[in-house]
């Protein structure tokens, strides 16, 4: 009885049998399908559907990466209200790393075999593109084996503005310097209504998508994120997912989608509470079901907590991200997880959650370093 419990007739009782049939037939779900899934009170029924897709795509594999995070500066002109990381120039907690300091951070981590450096920062009012080119070149010269996933679409647009050139030029220069891929941050929620309340000075949703398109056309792959659990509606989450899905239909340039639960501590969003486990799992599951053309979905343990991320592997997620030495952004907003995990902790946590750990690089190619 157990094996067949969550079957067609179960979903018929929930009024979701047409969605079940679409998933079985690998057919695309509509916006309305997404809304019905969010409205469904049966968490496990929604999760089981997403898990089916996950297993179809990746079996019992769970990916992780050995990486290092570097935040070159927290000085930022955007002033997004959901952010606890950004600071104005002159603020006592503002920091800006010089080339030498970044080099030291990279050298300090040399004994750990990382495959990826993930580098993002605030939109600094003055740092020229040449600084970033130098930094990336230095990282590649110290660790030629490492892939550099750096600068979100927001930073790219910002550099273009400062340099008075096109985003295409910025991307081309950065790629020559050694940038291999763009991280998915800065997407937040594309809805203009939300952006006008929370981050009016930031690159718009349309702008973010257009930079991603440019990068993809140049052959530079990228990730995509969604910051949820602040003021947005379920509908706005679905619109965001569908916008990503449509761009992916065009370019096939997105590698991994990362839903990010909003962390309210130390931010300026009034009335927002931390997301709950059920909300997190539902959002992950529905994202997996809606994004039929983006291969990977990450359960970002830094913001979900390791324990919930383990459960999320059964709700659509196939990636556990990484060792992440020195995570700052989530932790300054009150994230209660550890600040790093070792390889053996990552592998063990994945195995004991019932999956087979696979080390990957930023392109999700399998890595065997040892």
């Amino acid at each position, binding site marked *: 009885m157990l094996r067949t419990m969550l079957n067609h007739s179960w979903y018929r009782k929930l009024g979701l049998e047409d969605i079940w049939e679409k998933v079985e037939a690998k057919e695309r779900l509509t916006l309305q399908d997404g809304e019905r899934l969010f409205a469904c009170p049966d968490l496990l029924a929604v999760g089981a559907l997403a898990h089916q897709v996950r297993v179809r795509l990746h079996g019992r594999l769970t990916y992780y990466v050995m990486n290092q995070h570097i935040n070159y500066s927290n000085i930022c002109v955007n002033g997004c209200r959901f952010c606890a990381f950004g600071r104005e120039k002159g603020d006592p907690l503002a920091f800006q790393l010089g080339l030498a300091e970044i080099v030291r951070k990279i050298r300090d981590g040399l004994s750990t075999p990382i495959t990826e450096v993930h580098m993002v920062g605030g939109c600094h009012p003055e740092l020229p593109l040449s600084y970033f080119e130098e930094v990336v070149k230095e990282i590649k010269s110290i660790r030629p084996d490492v892939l550099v996933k750096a600068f979100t679409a927001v930073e790219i647009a910002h550099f273009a503005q400062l340099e008075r050139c096109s985003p295409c030029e910025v991307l081309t220069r950065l790629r020559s310097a050694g940038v291999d891929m763009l991280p998915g941050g800065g997407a937040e929620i594309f809805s203009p209504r939300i952006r006008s309340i929370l981050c009016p000075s930031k690159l718009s949703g349309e702008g973010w998508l257009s930079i991603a398109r440019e990068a993809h056309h140049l052959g530079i792959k990228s990730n995509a994120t969604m910051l949820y659990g602040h003021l947005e509606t379920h509908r706005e989450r679905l619109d965001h997912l569908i916008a990503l899905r449509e761009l992916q239909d065009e370019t096939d340039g997105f590698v991994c989608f990362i839903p990010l639960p909003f962390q309210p501590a130390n931010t300026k969003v009034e009335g927002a509470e931390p997301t*709950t486990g059920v909300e997190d799992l539902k959002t992950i599951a529905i994202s997996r079901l809606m994004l039929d053309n983006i291969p990977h979905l990450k359960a970002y343990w830094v913001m979900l907590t390791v324990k919930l991320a383990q459960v999320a592997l*059964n709700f659509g997620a196939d990636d556990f991200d990484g060792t992440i030495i020195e995570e700052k952004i989530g932790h300054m907003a009150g994230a209660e997880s550890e600040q790093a995990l070792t390889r053996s902790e990552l592998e063990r946590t994945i195995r004991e959650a019932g999956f087979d750990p696979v080390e990957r690089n930023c392109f999700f190619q399998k890595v065997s370093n040892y």
Partner: protein
Amino acid sequence: MELGERLDFEAAWHLYETGEFHSLGRLAHQVRINKRPADYVSYVVDRNINYSNICVCGCRFCAFYRTPGHAEGYVLTHEQLGRKIEETLSLGGTQILMQGGHHPDLPLSFYEEMLRFIKNGYPIHIHAFSPPEIVHFSKLEKLSCAEVIARLRAAGLDSIPGGGAEILVDSVRCRVSPNKCSAGEWLAVMEEAHNQGMRTTATMMFGHLEQPRDRLEHLFALRDLQDRTGGFTAFIPWAFQSKNTAIDRFPETAVSYLRLLAISRLVLDNFDNIQASWVTMGPKVAQVALHFGANDFGSTMIEENVVAAAGVSFRLSTEEIRRIIRSAGFKPRQRTMAYQWVNPDE
């Protein structure tokens, strides 16, 4: 297996080991819906007071105890106890959960006086001690457990928490808590308490040195006793936390916890309530547990020292607990130890 059929050991073992994760959880959730008013998730407002941390038991999984003579050892005075209880009452608390270490010198009269002091001064339910403490008192005083229970009850004890169960399999107990009462003694104390008209809870701490099959043996031992007495109000399982303890072990995953919770709901068909543990598993996973068989969110824990000593200190206010329950799709409702509603009209 049809819904409503009693699970035998091998069937339960097969389900636990091989049952698909989502279906196992959904089955447990269905049993929960059939048993208790599905709309509500209950919680209690209480405080865990530890009257003393001085202990000669020395369990390997414990970070809380201090041996006699240790600088950090303490015994609460009546004054300190009184203040904690006043604070609890002012925060809307309906009970205290009061436990301590196995103190080598305090006589039974000490505990009787403590109970009388509380009962005479404060309108609060006393949910106190545990089978290992009762057995310890009986050995010190050379009395039967039945007499110890009767005297404590006369002095004001209202109910007994199900702690000290760990895993009710002696081969495990001799490795993790050799100086503690045996599985048989734990069960006998609860049977006696139930026969004397007292309600108790039952617990399981898993994820230390036991085998998965031992966890199931534990559940069946509880089920058998409940068949005879019906005295258990609830079952609470949680995962061992290893920091600052003498057992070095990778923590049990949340997936493992949810599986264990689900199988508990399915095996313990004669228990009305299964409690999620936010104190050890954190609020996010405990909330998800409400879809895996749990119908109760435990206590607001105005104070908690034992798990905190093992390096895990989540804290939730009553408002946060209510919000978490609502966000999971249920109505929050405050209850007493005996699972009656504090506000009948809520």
